[in-house]
């Protein structure tokens, strides 16, 4: 109710504002974009619990410390740190501390129709593709994205020409390397041309017990009839602060599936914004989060149906152990023009820890009358009947629990189409359960 009261800037906010002060006054489009983002951050600052979209993840309180922007990582350390999804046959690109490491990245022998470059290289060359950066807007102020826009200097830019089918997945491995806590910013762009097909994976990791901050944002522009699969694995170190923003613009009859798997970080927030701007597209945004200790994870998404006949599906599973806190905020908007929309959103939470907390907020905003929309949210402990059934068959308590958790998470992981990636995620889930037992 006191939202209009302007809070005093915290040390972290002041440090960010100071860091943003050094931006060049003007120049090209990208510089202007950065400046605008810096200005809006200076105006709004970090969101707190009175800001509806951050109600359950009070960045202002959680992000007390301001850490310096990370320097260049040592190649050997970055290489040693990038362990996730190594077993998956993919074109690997390593992004350490927000900068692409060419020595560790597979940028040669590109398939026909595929082009891969970096934001830094594109900026140096004045590449035309830069005009697409910042092309998809979330429609509301997002502090994480504003910081990313203002401070990111590198990232991966992938373009798939119309009609090209890229079988080999692209895997962008984000790592944090260094001896002391710092903040990294990576900005990526994926453009899938009309009728093209791509599988894009992202992984995030870093050292244990270090309060580093990783801020990543990726824009996906999906052309008409295109097909895009996105698979994300977030296993940041236990002290890390992870902020990521995904922005989608989906064309006519396109198919987009994104799966986010979160295990790591002390505090993680993933914001997904999808604009369905072409008729009859099909999108599926799914996720699974496994939490233990005192972790805090927030999945927030906004799916905006602007045109008729689109279908959206969201399924998010959260497993909460110990004193963790899970947040799911999903919002489906159906505009007046978006008749025949079919939108379904589901959030399920399995609470294992007595002191864990789950906050669900599935929202619908509907302005068209001929639609089918629904949402559901459940939250509870493991069903005693199911446990009893397994135990009656001689399975020990812990194991029975593990089996049920695995089945619970499995339903979401199964939506990943790529075999190798799906298996890798199942393996990570199993490892998590094993560590728990």
């Amino acid at each position, binding site marked *: *109710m*006191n*939202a*209009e009261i302007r809070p005093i800037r915290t040390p972290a906010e002041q440090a960010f504002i100071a860091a943003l002060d050094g931006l060049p006054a003007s120049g090209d489009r990208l510089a202007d974009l950065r400046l605008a983002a810096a200005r809006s951050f200076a105006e709004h600052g970090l969101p707190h619990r009175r800001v*509806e979209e951050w109600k359950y993840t009070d960045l202002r309180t959680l992000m007390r410390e301001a850490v310096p922007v990370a320097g260049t990582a040592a190649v050997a350390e970055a290489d040693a740190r990038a362990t996730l999804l190594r077993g998956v046959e993919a074109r690997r690109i390593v992004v350490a501390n927000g900068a692409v490491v060419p020595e560790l990245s597979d940028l040669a022998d590109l398939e026909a129709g595929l082009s891969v470059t970096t934001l830094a290289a594109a900026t140096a060359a004045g590449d035309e593709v830069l005009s697409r950066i910042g092309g998809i807007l979330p429609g509301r102020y997002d502090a994480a994205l504003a910081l990313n826009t203002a401070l990111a200097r590198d990232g991966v830019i992938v373009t798939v020409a119309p009609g090209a089918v890229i079988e080999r997945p692209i895997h962008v491995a984000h790592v944090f390397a260094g001896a002391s806590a710092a903040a990294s910013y990576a900005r990526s762009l994926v453009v899938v041309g009309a009728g093209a097909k791509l599988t894009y994976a992202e992984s995030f990791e870093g050292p244990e017990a270090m309060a580093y901050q990783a801020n990543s944002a990726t824009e996906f522009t999906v052309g008409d009839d295109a097909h895009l699969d996105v698979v994300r694995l977030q296993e940041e170190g236990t002290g890390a602060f992870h902020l990521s923003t995904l922005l989608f613009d989906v064309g006519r009859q396109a198919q987009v599936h994104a799966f986010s798997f979160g295990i790591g970080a002390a505090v993680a927030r993933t914001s997904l914004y999808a604009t369905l701007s072409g008729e009859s597209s099909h999108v599926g945004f799914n996720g699974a989060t496994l939490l233990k200790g005192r972790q805090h994870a927030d999945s927030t998404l906004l799916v905006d149906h602007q045109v008729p006949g689109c279908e959206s599906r969201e399924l998010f599973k959260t497993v*909460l152990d110990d004193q963790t806190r899970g947040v799911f905020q999903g919002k489906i908007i159906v505009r*007046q023009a978006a*008749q025949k929309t079919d939108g379904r959103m589901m959030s399920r*939470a399995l*609470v*294992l*820890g*007595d*002191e*864990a*907390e*789950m*906050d*669900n*907020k*599935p*929202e*619908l*905003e*509907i*302005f*068209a*009358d*001929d*639609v*089918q*929309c*629904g*949402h*559901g*949210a*459940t*939250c*509870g*402990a493991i069903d005693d009947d199911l446990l009893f059934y397994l135990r009656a068959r001689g399975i020990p308590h812990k194991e029975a629990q593990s089996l049920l958790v695995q089945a619970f998470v499995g339903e979401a992981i199964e939506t990943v189409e790529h075999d190798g990636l799906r298996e890798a995620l199942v393996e990570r889930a199993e490892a998590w359960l094993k560590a728990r037992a």
Partner: protein
Amino acid sequence: MPAVQETVDQVRSLDVDQYKYGFFTEIESEKAPKGLTEDTVRFISAKKDEPEWMLEWRLEAFRRWQTMPEPNWARVSYPPIDYQELYYYSAPKRKEALSIDDIDPEILATYEKLGIPLRERDALLGIQSGGSKVAVDAVFDSVSVATTFKEELSKAGVIFMPISEAVREYPELVRQYLGSVVPVTDNYFATLNSAVFSDGSFVYVPKGVRCPMELSTYFRINERNTGQFERTLIIADEGAYVSYLEGCTAPQRDENQLHAAVVELVALADAEIKYSTVQNWYPGDKDGKGGIYNFVTKRGDCRGDRSKISWTQVETGSAITWKYPSCILRGDNSQGEFYSIAISNGYQQVDSGTKMIHLGKNTSSRIISKGIAAGHSDNTYRGLVTAHRKATGARNFTNCDSLLIGDKCGAHTVPYIESKNSSAQFEHEATTSKISEDQLFYCRQRGLDPEEATALIVNGFVKDVLQQLPMEFAVEAQKLIAVSLEGSVG
């Protein structure tokens, strides 16, 4: 899928243009000077002959209110209200009526026209035509004009009287409970109400007593530019039961009128309170001109173990509805229920829902909300279900459906579901097909298709509660229930 024709017709027949209760009663009234100052508060308190503590209580609320900003988080928009342009007290000019025959015949006629019999003899005649006996407290603008069946109720030990009388006659009870559920500083409109409330009903049902008849209050705003600030306090002592009904109407006017009420319910151990509302304030005309701003704070406190509070609301009126009847489930094994049907048409805006706050062990709550939006209206369900650390075994089931008729209206759902302990079991759903698989299966086995079966189950379910309403409400309410749920969206 779009709404079926039957539903469209049904909603149209309830259209804003067809408001039946829009007449105005020509009657001399006594008003407080326009505007709101400490003097207004003192004026009201003096009019009511209140003890010193009550005045202090009001003044404290008023001082607090002056420091509060008006809330803006609800999905409603309206031009700023000029609180100094309103009258905060208006009473028909006649000395307090000692018996029904002393009441101004104009007022009696008004209530008769509204279908509310204030003469016990008339009410008893109603029994023969099938209605049940209902005790009525009639509130006209700022004062209660009549309370029926007082004697019969007092034989059972039930206290049912205007709250202004209760302040004088049962000060210790009022003092103990007033503001204990909705604190003076709860929110902007509740605080305003605490400062200037003029009348409302007070109910106390003693230990182990099942209230022998339905209690009801009928609110009528008559005077121009007048805000109605009613305050209702219902206390069900251990093992008591009471069913309470509330109805409201207002004349048809071009300007907006403010209605900011506070309702507090207290259920002690093993007590049950059933609170039903048929809200039919003037909704404004078809262009959105006029209508009541209905900013209401209703909250029930299940203070004792095994207590139960059930809210039922049928919302068809008001230009703006801002209302969240809530339950604080404090006692172990206590239960809260919320059944709501909100229909908006024309330019009406509804932002309504409930809060179920689970504090005690093994508490359970159920929320069934149906929103129907037509015309240019906006209909929002906003609800909170929360289980605190110690609320082990808390359970909630929520089902909120909304239906849009036409493409100029909006339906929104904003549920907050917060679980802070592992044994809480929360389910929230927005599909009509999932109500009870068993019941569905049973109906389908008998040849009903899923839609018919669902409608049957939901209607049967809601009807259960609505059939308990007295005749004059039931007719209206049942008409609304007849609205098909076909084509619902979450």
